[in-house]
């Protein structure tokens, strides 16, 4: 099957080819090149984001694991003043260490959230169009409802004036 055998389609193609000659030279190549560039950049950005995300997840995992292995679940210290004092020092040092670790985890989590937020921003950009359309649709509906309500109110007013049943 070939369209070249069909006079109608051959005519459209000829007319289109000659009409296209009036468009700026290099127009198609420029558009195609521009999109290829956008695709490459978008792909590179996504890769960088993915790598950052994976690295942060890895750091968070390592920190959580080190916290788990470093913190004793229970401690049975024998009595005695000296031992208690030494134990107190060890526990205090351990608490400081734990606190530092938690701080680091929080920072890592914060970075993770920031990266996720950046990804969400990109997603939001492309969703924005759809959301705008939807919002406009909802606004249209609400406006229509408001109009109906005000019309109903004026009808009600009109009716109450007509039958004289309005009370104060």
């Amino acid at each position, binding site marked *: *099957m070939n369209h070249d055998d069909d006079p109608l389609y051959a005519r459209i193609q000829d007319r289109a*080819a000659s009409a296209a000659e009036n*468009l700026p030279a290099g127009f198609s190549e420029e558009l*195609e090149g521009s999109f290829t560039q956008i695709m490459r950049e978008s792909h590179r950005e996504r890769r960088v984001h993915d790598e950052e995300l994976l690295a942060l997840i890895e750091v968070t995992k390592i920190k959580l694991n080190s916290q788990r292995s470093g913190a004793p679940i229970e401690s049975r210290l024998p009595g005695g003043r000296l031992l208690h004092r030494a134990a107190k020092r060890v526990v205090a040092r351990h608490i400081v260490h734990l606190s530092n670790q938690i701080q680091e985890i929080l920072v890592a989590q914060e970075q993770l959230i920031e990266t996720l937020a950046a990804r969400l921003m990109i997603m939001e950009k492309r969703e924005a169009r759809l959301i705008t*359309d939807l919002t406009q649709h909802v606004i249209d509906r609400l406006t229509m409802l408001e109009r109906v309500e005000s019309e109903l109110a004026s009808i009600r007013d009109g009716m109450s004036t007509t039958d004289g049943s309005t009370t104060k």
Partner: protein
Amino acid sequence: MTRQIIQVLAGASEGDAITNMALRMVSGLSRLGSARTFSVHEPPESMRTIVEPLEDAPLGRREDILVYHLSYGNPDLTRFVLRWPGRLVVMYHNVTPVEHFLDLDEQFAMGLAWGREEVRILADRTDLAFACSEFSARDLRIAGYRNVTTEAVGVDPRRLDDLDLDTELVRKLDSWSPEGYVVSVGQLLPHKRHDLSVSVAHALRTYLRRDLGMVIVGRTRHEGYLEALVSHIDSLPDIRVTILGLVSDRELATLYRTSVCYLNMSDHEGFGIPPLEAMSCGAAVVVRDNGALLETVGDGGLVLPNSWGPDRIAAAVAEVVGDDDLLGELRRRGQRRVRTFDVDRSVSQFVAQVEQIL
């Protein structure tokens, strides 16, 4: 014990062409035994009663039949198919060439590469092979399949015909683009080339002075492509494009019926159901000569050379939409073309052939 006939798909979803084709085959296959449909990827909640997860599939017996809808590669699925003890029927929907994804999505590209490999692996194991188009049948013959039947089994281009017009959507589109709009339908994947449709929309408005909008419809299958598509739209001045994403069947029918023209700029199609549905709904169809599009569309639509860029394509669209006689002729031809497809006949012929290998 009743013979079991199972159909297996890589994935199932609402509005998906392959899923729809498989589901239309169920009643025909039920004449040969108990027919069920399974999907490797978890089917959506709304489809659980008609499509089951593959892990629930029976292991099969010698008298059972597996109808495998091949469109993407998955090693688990290949293993399942190779272990199937009964008859194997391959329904080949084509696998997108891997080069479209190599630099963009390695994982997806791997699946496609495996799909192509799987076609080769299953050649000797297959009892009966079907392809949706002659274009796809060639892949099977090259891979060593014998007696390949070319038949678009379960394709129903008229499925949207009886749906009511969505008047609310019409009102919105009219106020958005009063002079009309072109519709581009297909999954949001790089090889579907919605970006080219956008460039065409830009050329139409900027240089050819056609005040037309462009509506892009399709499920998002590749987020990177969607991001790039939005950036492409944002980078072009004087353009009116909206991406509606996945729409309901009623909305899709409305878009086809009210658009001035349907555009398919795809680089690769194993068949091409949207252009047929568009024709059936009365849209004038313009496509590029890639994959199976020429043989699918036939003389029912304008098929442009695949070497044409946005300038010539836009000029062709301008020629079509600016001439009422041409538009009318194109629409008539489209309607005539869809009448050559008969879903019941295709399923009956398919079942009759399957019956012969029992």
